Each structure stands twice: as structure tokens, then as C-alpha cells.
């Protein structure tokens, strides 16, 4: 079929560029100490914290992101285009900028910080801060993929359901959601993956303490200080988790 032959050269080049660094990690992995390194207490706590916080932030992304995607895809109002661009901003923003922004919002001296302090809540240096940072950077992934799914699904079935007397909530629950479920699933997986890899906003906003705020990426960064091999071993763990997550995303997409 009509793919120009010469396309293969840059395509292969691109693939090699992405894959070679992964090969390099595997090549540098200290296999003799691998198990011992990845099962140390700090490694286990970091992985557990990462999985726990990423799951929580994915849940929040779904709860807030689904309505956002529906509103963006199914309604039109003035300034919608600008709003969409702004909501997607964390996608292109350097995470450290996100961290600074969150600090000035939820920090002790931030916009909402004093309100929180009065309520006896302290976000700074807590696991909540990690979840906030992850949700901030991951939300656009869910919104983008779900909005895309909603637009390509079209409104035909919704219109039919409505003409048969279904109320908007029923249409949303029985028609819209089932139609875009694969899109929602892959969006959620992407959000989870992005949360798992979150580093910049977390270290800027949440701090770093074993079991509380030191997620796997932060643990890897810290380990490099003293034990480069441990950092490589943990990096490989994160690569494997990422591969598994992408596998899930592929499966949910091919189920369409």
C-alpha cells in the first residue's frame, strides 16, 4: 500500500531515538543486586505511595474531568475556546511552574491556604499535596481524550434517546457514557500514567519525605545522590509499570 519507502528511514530513526535510552537503562541495571534494591523499605514505600496517590488522583480526574469534557464537547458558550486552552495548559506547562502555582494557591500563604488553615487543614508537606500536584498535571490528559471521543461519537444516539423522551441525565448515563467508555478508560489510564511519573510539581509543592510525599520519581532522584545503581534499578521498575499501563490503554482502545 501507498506508504513512500523513504518514510521508513526517519520513522526508524524516531523509533531508535525513543527505544535506545530504554535499552541503555536495561543494560545498566545491576541485576545481581536488583531484587535487594527494589525491595528495600524506602523503595517499597515509594512505589506503594506512588500507586496509591496516582489511583486517587485518577479518581479525582474522572470525577471532575468527565463533566468538564462533556461540557466542552456538548455545549457552546462565549469564551469556550479560551477556556478549553486554559484547562489544557498543564499539558504544556513545565511541571515546576505548576508546583509554584499550586504553592501560591494551596500553600499556607496562598490564595486558599488561610481558609484551609482556619479549617485546621494543612496541605503543605502532606500526601494530599502530592495528589493535588498529580491531579493538576494529569487532568488535561483525561479531558482531551474524552472530549475527542465524545466529538467523534457524535450526537445521533443522544438525539434519538431524547426524542423518545429520555431526560438529559438518563441520556448521559445510558447513552453518552457507554458510547465513550473506551475513550474514558484510555483517558483514565493516561492520567494514571502521568500521575505516576509526576516529579516537578510534587518536589516543588509537596516536599519529599519517605512514606508521606516521596513518590517513586522523587526516590529515584534522591537515590542518585548516593547509589546510582539503585536509581537505575528503580527506574526500570517505573519503566515496567509504564509499559504495563500502556498495555492496558492499548487494550481498552482496541476494544472500541
Amino acid at each position: 500500500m501507498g506508504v513512500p519507502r523513504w518514510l521508513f528511514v526517519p520513522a526508524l530513526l524516531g523509533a531508535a531515538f525513543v527505544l535506545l535510552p530504554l535499552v541503555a537503562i536495561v543494560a545498566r541495571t545491576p541485576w545481581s543486586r536488583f531484587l535487594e534494591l527494589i525491595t528495600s523499605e524506602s523503595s517499597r514505600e515509594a512505589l506503594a505511595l506512588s500507586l496509591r496517590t496516582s489511583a486517587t488522583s485518577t479518581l479525582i480526574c474522572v470525577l471532575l474531568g468527565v463533566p468538564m469534557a462533556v461540557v466542552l464537547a456538548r455545549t457552546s458558550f462565549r469564551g469556550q475556546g479560551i477556556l478549553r486552552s486554559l484547562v489544557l495548559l498543564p499539558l504544556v506547562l513545565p511541571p515546576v511552574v505548576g508546583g509554584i502555582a499550586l504553592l501560591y494557591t494551596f500553600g499556607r500563604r496562598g490564595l486558599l491556604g488561610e481558609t484551609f488553615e482556619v479549617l485546621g487543614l494543612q496541605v503543605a508537606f502532606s500526601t494530599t499535596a502530592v495528589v493535588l500536584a498529580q491531579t493538576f498535571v494529569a487532568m488535561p490528559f483525561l479531558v482531551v481524550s474524552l472530549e475527542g471521543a465524545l466529538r467523534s461519537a457524535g450526537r445521533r444516539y443522544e438525539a434519538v434517546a431524547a426524542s423518545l423522551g429520555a431526560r438529559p441525565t438518563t441520556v448521559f448515563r445510558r447513552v453518552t457514557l457507554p458510547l465513550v467508555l473506551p475513550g474514558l478508560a484510555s483517558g483514565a489510564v493516561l492520567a494514571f500514567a502521568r500521575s505516576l511519573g509526576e516529579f516537578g510539581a510534587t518536589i516543588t509543592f509537596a516536599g519529599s519525605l519517605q512514606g508521606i510525599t516521596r513518590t517513586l520519581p522523587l526516590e529515584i532522584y534522591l537515590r542518585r545522590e548516593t547509589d546510582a545503581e539503585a536509581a537505575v534499578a528503580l527506574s526500570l521498575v517505573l519503566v515496567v509499570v509504564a509499559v504495563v499501563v500502556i498495555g492496558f490503554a492499548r487494550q481498552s482502545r482496541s476494544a472500541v
Partner: protein
Amino acid sequence: MKKTSALAVTALVALAAAACGSGGDESDAGADGGTTTITVFAAASLTSTFEELATDFEAENDGVEIQFNFAGSSDLVAQLQEGAPADVLATADEANMDKATADDLVGTPTLFASNTLEIAVPPGNPAGITSVDDLTADGLNLVLCAPEVPCGAAAEAVAEAADLDLSPVSEEQSVTDVLAKVGTGEADAGLVYVTDVIAAGDDVEGVEVPDDVNAVNLYPVATVAESEEADLAQAFVDLILAPTGQDALADAGFAPAP
């Protein structure tokens, strides 16, 4: 096909290197009467002092330009170990310099300065910290460096010497991160170097740590073994050890090396 792609990868890397090629091409630049560049890898805490010294050095040596890589000491050594080109290495502790010496990456190091810890608090000292003993107060947001990095090891030494059981809310990656948390008021107190408190200006205030419990970090400097400009590298090291260099370091809050 395999050969082609390997060749293409090489070409791509070369292309990328050429596109961002500001550093590392000192040899050919020097030949046509342009500038000679030496690269200095230095601990982040030395930033302002070394930049000031570089201006002096460049003024005294016509056609010489100093390029800096300021980072955490262990990052600098790791980069050297992976073959990054440099002419001078200055670290914030002896442990990291020892790693470089053990791998024969550098010549014999010379101690050129020392640094001690100080308590940094937000402007106005909202938590009313007056001594190291106050660092154990209930509900205090204390931020330290992680024990894995030099400033964290020094903080541990202070805790041990003063017999304090410190429970930080965060163990940060670097002094900069600790200062940022204190400066924004997120943390009530942090342990950083004396020089950092001075460099931070109005962002934080300092509370002294008494000499008898303080930790002393010694700063070594050495020329890099594979330097192509060994004479210039040595000249820069000499400048650091000369009165000019020592005065600049003292202005920044460093104490002389023992």
C-alpha cells in the same frame, strides 16, 4: 537497514550537537585567535562567588572565557564519571571529591573554604525560633536536606551534636529547595549553610547555630585530569586560593579552610 539506522542515529546526534553547540569546541576556537574556554564544575553554593572571580579571571587573561556548570556536588561528579568535559571541579564536601579522586578523574584536591549551618526562618520569624532547641517544637514545620546530600548529612551531625531528635516534615533534595520552602513561608524553619542565608537576602532570616554543635563542611577544588587547558585550569585554582579569591569567598560568608 540496521547499518543505515545506526548511521542515521549518529547523524541525528551530530546534528543535535551542532545545533546546540555552544560548549566543548574550545580547541578550534583558540586556534584562530578567538577565545579559549575553560569549563568549571562547581557546587551550587559557589555560584555568585565564582561568577565574580570569573570576571576577574577573564579580565586578566585575554581571550579566555570561563564556562560554569553549577549543580549539586554529587551530580557534578556523576557527570564527570560519565565523561562530561571539564577543567576544574569544586565540590561542597570532601566525600564527593573523594569519589572523583578514587576514579582518577582529578588531580590532588586542595581545600579552599569551609561553610557551617545556620537556621533559616521566614521574614519576621513567625514561629519565634531562637535556638536549635526550638527546632523540636511540636507542630513546627521543619525542613531539612535529605541525609543523602551534603547539607542533610551536616544537619544530621548538628542534631547529633546538640542531642536533638529532629522530625522534619520534608527532606529536600538541595539547599535551594529548603530555602524555597522557608522563603515562601511553607516551612517555619530550615537548616541551610550560612552562605545561603546571606545569598537569599531579604527572603529569609538567619538564626545562629552555636559553634560547639555546628557541622563544618570543607570545600575542595581540583583540576580535572583530562583537561586540555591544564595551565589555565591551574591558574583558576590559584586565583581561588589567592587573597582575591579568599576575600570574595569571605564576602559571601564562607570561612577559610583550616
